[in-house]
C-alpha cells in the first residue's frame, strides 16, 4: 500500500525536476529574502553596537534565517490544487483512484517539496556563506536540521491539505492560507528566532504547532542541543498525530457532503 504513495511522491518529484527552470527562478526568492535580512540585521547589530541578541550573534541570526527560509520556501501549495479540484468538480475523478485522496495529496505534496528543498538548501548555504563569510553550525546540527525539516514539511503538508479541503465550505481558501503563512512568519519564528520575543509570547508560541515548522529546524542547525532536538521532534510527532486525526475527521465530513452529479 505504502509503495503506491511512494510512487506518487516520486512522480511528483520527477515532475518538479523536469520543470527545473521554473525551480531556478523560484530560488531567486531565497536570494532576495536573504539580501534584505542580511542588510537589516547587519544594520541593527551595527547601530545598536551589540554583539549578541538573546544569545544569537549576527552570523547565527543570519544562518538561522537562511535555514528557516529553506524550509519555508519548500512548503506545500497543494491547497491550490485541492481547492481548484473541489470548485471545478474534478475532485470526483481523483476519488475514483484506488488511493485515499488526502494521503495521495500528502504524498504528492512531499514529492513536490523534496527537489525544491534540496535546491533551496544549496542556495541558502551559498548566499549565507557569501553574506556572512562565516560557517556556522555542525555536522550533528545539519543532520538534526534534515530530520526536523522533513517532519516540518510533513506537518506543513497536513496543514495545506486541511486548508484545501475547506473549499468544500468556503468559496476562497487563499485568505486562510495567507493567515496560516503569516503565523509561520511571526509566531512560527521565520523572521525572528523565538528567543527574541517577550517571555509571555515565547511561552504561548511554544505550545502552538507553527514554531515546529520554521523555528525547530533552524534552531537545531545553529545551536544543536540533544534535549532541544528531542523536545522538538516529540512536538512535531504529536502535532502530526493530531492533524492526521483532524484530517481523517474532516475527510469523513467531506465525503458526506460531496454530491457527484454524473459528468
Amino acid at each position, binding site marked *: 500500500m505504502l509503495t503506491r504513495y511512494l510512487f506518487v511522491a516520486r512522480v511528483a518529484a520527477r515532475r518538479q525536476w523536469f520543470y527545473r527552470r521554473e525551480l531556478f527562478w523560484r530560488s531567486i526568492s531565497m536570494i532576495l*529574502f536573504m539580501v534584505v535580512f542580511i542588510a537589516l540585521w547587519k544594520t541593527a547589530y551595527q547601530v545598536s553596537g551589540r554583539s549578541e541578541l538573546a544569545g544569537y550573534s549576527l552570523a547565527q541570526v543570519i544562518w538561522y534565517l537562511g535555514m528557516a527560509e529553506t524550509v519555508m520556501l519548500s512548503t506545500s501549495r497543494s491547497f491550490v490544487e485541492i481547492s481548484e479540484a473541489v470548485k471545478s468538480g474534478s475532485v470526483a475523478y481523483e476519488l475514483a483512484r484506488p488511493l485515499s485522496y488526502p494521503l495521495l495529496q500528502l504524498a504528492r505534496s512531499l514529492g513536490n517539496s523534496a527537489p525544491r528543498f534540496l535546491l533551496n538548501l544549496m542556495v541558502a548555504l551559498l548566499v549565507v556563506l557569501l553574506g556572512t563569510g562565516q560557517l556556522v553550525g555542525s555536522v550533528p546540527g545539519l543532520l538534526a536540521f534534515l530530520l526536523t525539516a522533513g517532519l516540518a514539511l510533513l506537518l506543513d503538508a497536513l496543514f495545506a491539505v486541511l486548508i484545501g479541503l475547506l473549499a468544500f465550505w468556503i468559496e476562497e481558501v487563499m485568505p486562510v492560507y495567507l493567515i496560516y503563512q503569516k503565523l509561520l512568519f511571526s509566531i512560527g519564528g521565520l523572521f525572528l528566532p523565538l528567543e527574541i*520575543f517577550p517571555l509571555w509570547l515565547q511561552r504561548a508560541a511554544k505550545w502552538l504547532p507553527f514554531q515546529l515548522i520554521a523555528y525547530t529546524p533552524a534552531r537545531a542547525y545553529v545551536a544543536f542541543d540533544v534535549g532541544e532536538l528531542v523536545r522538538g521532534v516529540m512536538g512535531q510527532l504529536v502535532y502530526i498525530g493530531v492533524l492526521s486525526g483532524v484530517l481523517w475527521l474532516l475527510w469523513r465530513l467531506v465525503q458526506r457532503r460531496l454530491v457527484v452529479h454524473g459528468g
Partner: protein
Amino acid sequence: MKIWRLISGYVRHNFMAGMAYRGAFFLQIFGMMINNLMLLFFWNMMFLSFPTLNGWELQDIIVLYSIVAVGFGFSVVIFGNASRLASLITSGELDYYLALPADPLVHLLVSRMSLSGWGDFFFGLLLYLFVLPSAWRNLPLFLLLSLLAGLISTAFAVLTGSLAFWLGESEQLAAQLRMALLNFSLYPVDIFSGGVRLLLYTIIPAAFVGSVPAKLLTDFDIWWLAGLILVTALMGGLASWVFRLGLRRYESGNLVTVRG
C-alpha cells in the same frame, strides 16, 4: 475622456462581478488585512530590541507600510491584469485587446481586478488614519503619494511583463521581479548599502514606491516631490513605449476564446 469612461466602466463591472460572490469577496479583504497586520508584528518585535534603525523608527515604518499598502492596493484593484501580462503575451491572448478601438495597454490592464487588493487598500488607509497623529491633515498628500507609488508599481509590472515579447515564457521571472519590488519597498532603503541601494533607485525602483514617499510624508520637500512625479511620469512613458515596441514582435496565437 474616453479612456476615463473605459477605466471607470471596468472598475464598476469588475467590482460587481466580485460582489457576485460576496462571501469570498469579504473573506479575501479580511484575510489580506490580517495578513498585512501580521507582517507589522515583525517590526514591532524588531523595534522592541532596536529602538531605531538608521533613523527609522516604528512610526516611520507604519507610514511606509500605509503608503505601500494603499499604493499597491490601488494598483492591483484598478490595473489587476498587469500581473498576467507575460502569460497573455505567451499564450497569444493579446489579440482580443488589439482588435478593439480602445488603447490596448490600458484596456488589458483594467480588465481584471484583484479583489484581495481592496484588503491592502483599506488596511493601509485605516493604519494611516488611526495610528498616526495628524493623519487627517496630511490625507491629501498621503493619497497623492500612494497614487504615485501605485502608478510606479503598475508601470514596473508592465515593463517586467513585456519581457515576454523578447524572452518568450517568462511569467516566473516577471513574478519574481514584481515580488522583489514589493518586498524591497517594505523596508527602509537606508538599511541597504551602496550597490543594493543603487539597484533600488534604478532597476528595481522600490525606493520610489516605499521609502521616498514615506520620507516625503514625514519630512516634506517640494523638490523630492517634483522628483517623484517626474520618476512616475518617466516610468509610465517607458512602460508604454516598451509595450508598444514589444507589440511589433507579437505574433497572434490564433486562440479562439469566448469572453463573457
